[in-house]
């Protein structure tokens, strides 16, 4: 399906009410879980349930027929009924003004010839009824602006600006789990299931126009019509960053071909070239995909490739500089006037070069001041800041030990934690003030997420990167996208 009208997607993502068809009183059944999850997250619209027996489930009175429901009260039906019941169900829903069906039922295209026939029938019916058909065999849909968690799996992510679509429902969960963990939230998420009618790029086109979304994140495996896919994702990337995770990149492999060119044309190489041509960011792993999307959602785009690395200790800076050099980013030569300006803030043992290694010479205000100087310099396009949370890590050791709070420990612990909070806020403030990306990386983001440093980064709405390498890779995705736009002058 191409060019699906966006108002039909509104019935899916911003429904006035939702019907759970095939609601169950058994907490192990999808028909229960779906209703539970919708109610659990306090969806604001009307919630209806139907099943064969009626009765009350989670405080909702189930109707035995769609015909018993009020007209025009629900835009979305969440279908948990067996495949055989769905044709009649969809006809009844259409009569009540339902505009979208999320079909979680299995037994369709994934289930042999009979299933494929049933799936074709369902697609034709949806077209006849003018109903948006999502799935079948999908896990659900999430839309945080309306607090909708219509899915048969966890989790429900915090609200944010990343819109997710996946050919595999499990990756919707994976990305949302990262959203929960990092605090970088999601606007919409949908599992396309068998994508019988609405395909992954159809959702992406909706996300491109969606004011709640600033970056799209998708997992795709097979592409049915490569040219149509290319045209669609290219249009999406012209409007918003699109991060793709591709399954089966090495599958298929090189074919027997008479020509050298044909022999070299693996699926992976052609797909990668297509992505670069379309301005789409292709990620190499699940966490890389999420972190790239989270970075697009929370940092400004760099205007150039020149990176400064700011560290409080030597080795981190060196490794990060190596990662920058390996990437398509550049390690900025430290400008003379910036060196002079930093000289005024520090004793002479600092590195006086990029990476800017403060060498433990910092005092109370050094880090915020140097961050401001570095990010504010015209010859620096982005900053990676390392060393956040070290003092709070020590503070934790003191706080949990036998000497606390005596011997002055209470005071010093509070000071260290306050300082790390300041530094994390400074990184965000400087980024906002300069319009440049400032990425903070420390393994404490995962080893001790409650540390004042990473905790405060999360409070600023940004991602605290679990390693500097991962920060550099995320930043490289931003730079590639920015450069693509700059070179084609539609950024």
């Amino acid at each position, binding site marked *: 399906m191409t060019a699906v009208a966006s108002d039909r997607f509104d019935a899916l993502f911003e429904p006035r009410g939702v019907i759970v068809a095939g609601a169950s009183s058994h907490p192990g059944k999808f028909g229960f879980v779906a209703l539970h999850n919708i109610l659990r997250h306090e969806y604001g619209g009307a919630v209806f349930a139907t099943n064969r027996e009626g009765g009350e489930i989670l405080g909702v009175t189930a109707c035995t027929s769609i015909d018993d429901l009020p007209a025009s009260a629900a835009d979305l039906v969440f279908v948990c009924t067996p495949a055989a019941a769905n044709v009649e169900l969809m006809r009844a829903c259409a009569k009540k003004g339902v505009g979208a069906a999320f079909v979680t039922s299995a037994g369709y295209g994934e289930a042999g010839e009979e299933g494929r026939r049933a799936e074709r029938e369902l697609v034709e019916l949806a077209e006849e009824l003018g109903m948006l058909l999502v799935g079948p065999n999908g896990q659900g849909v999430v839309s945080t602006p309306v607090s909708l968690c219509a899915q048969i799996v966890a989790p429900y992510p915090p609200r944010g600006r990343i819109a997710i679509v996946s050919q595999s429902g499990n990756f919707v969960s994976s990305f949302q789990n990262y959203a929960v963990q990092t605090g970088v939230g999601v606007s919409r998420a949908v599992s396309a299931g068998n994508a019988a009618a609405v395909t992954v790029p159809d959702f992406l086109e909706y996300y491109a126009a969606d004011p709640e979304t600033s970056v799209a994140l998708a997992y795709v495996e097979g592409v049915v019509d490569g040219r149509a896919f290319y045209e669609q994702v290219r249009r999406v990337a012209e409007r918003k960053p699109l991060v793709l995770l591709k399954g089966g990149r090495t599958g298929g492999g090189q074919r027997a*071909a*008479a020509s050298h060119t044909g*022999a070299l044309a693996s699926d992976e190489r052609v797909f*990668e*070239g297509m992505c670069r041509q379309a301005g789409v960011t292709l990620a190499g792993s699940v966490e890389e995909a999420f972190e790239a999307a989270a970075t697009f959602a929370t940092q400004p785009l760099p205007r150039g490739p020149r990176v400064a690395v700011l560290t409080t200790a030597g080795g981190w800076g060196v490794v990060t500089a190596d990662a920058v050099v390996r990437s398509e980013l550049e390690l900025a030569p430290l400008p003379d006037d910036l060196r002079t300006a930093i000289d005024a803030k520090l004793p002479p043992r600092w590195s006086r070069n990029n990476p800017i290694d403060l060498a433990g010479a910092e005092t109370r205000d050094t880090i915020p001041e140097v961050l401001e100087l570095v990010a504010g310099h015209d010859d620096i396009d982005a900053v990676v800041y390392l060393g956040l949370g070290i003092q709070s890590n020590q503070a934790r050791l003191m706080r949990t030990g036998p000497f606390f709070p005596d011997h002055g420990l209470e005071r010093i612990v509070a000071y260290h934690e306050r300082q790390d909070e300041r530094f994390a806020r400074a990184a965000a403030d400087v980024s906002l003030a300069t319009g440049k990306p400032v990425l903070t990386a420390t393994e404490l983001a995962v080893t001790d997420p409650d540390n004042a440093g990473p905790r405060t980064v999360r409070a600023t709405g940004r991602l605290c990167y679990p390693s500097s390498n991962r920060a550099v890779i995320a930043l490289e995705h931003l730079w590639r996208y920015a450069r693509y736009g700059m070179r084609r002058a539609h950024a």
Partner: protein
Amino acid sequence: MTRTLSEAESKRVLAGHGVPVLDERLAATPDEAVAAADGLGYPVVVKACGAGIAHKTERGLVRLGLADATAVRSAAADVLAAVDASDGPVELLIAPMVRGTRELIAGLHDDPQFGRCVMVGLGGILAEAVGDVAFRLVPVEPVDVDEMLEELGAQAILGEFRGEPPVERAALGEVLLGLSHFAESDPAVVAVDVNPLVVVDGRPVAVDALVEVAE
């Protein structure tokens, strides 16, 4: 079904789309080969040329660095003796011997998912083993072509190299744009191999080429 054009015909077609080729001559006999070589100047290369000829190097159908008329006559006779009726009509292709240490590859491929693509990469006999290549879908824009070259791992090969000047990226880009135009102008083209695309004094020249068209 597809049909492969002879090397000479492939080059003639590609030259029409801006792919630089050498001044080459066709000859039917050893005597004609010598006359062609005299006209071109020595040293030259003698190759078998026909629509049914593939894997020339492996079959000994390419003779390099022929310095004089005697060498050309003898090589031409050898090449003609090495082909048989199963090769179909075969002529001799006489070409100037060019010197260049860098061999690139450029081509077109009809991908089953994405349709026709342009490719560039490191060429020569190691092309497939090294696999340092970049693809884009037809049609490509100049900016895409620049990015394809930027994407190659072996950037050192494109710079100044063993006393030779850097590759003129614009000239190399023209080859890729030419291949893209070729594909756009002729829907029957399903594959092109320009391998090697030898860098001579910084400029790419198609030393061997093969065009495959749908029938």
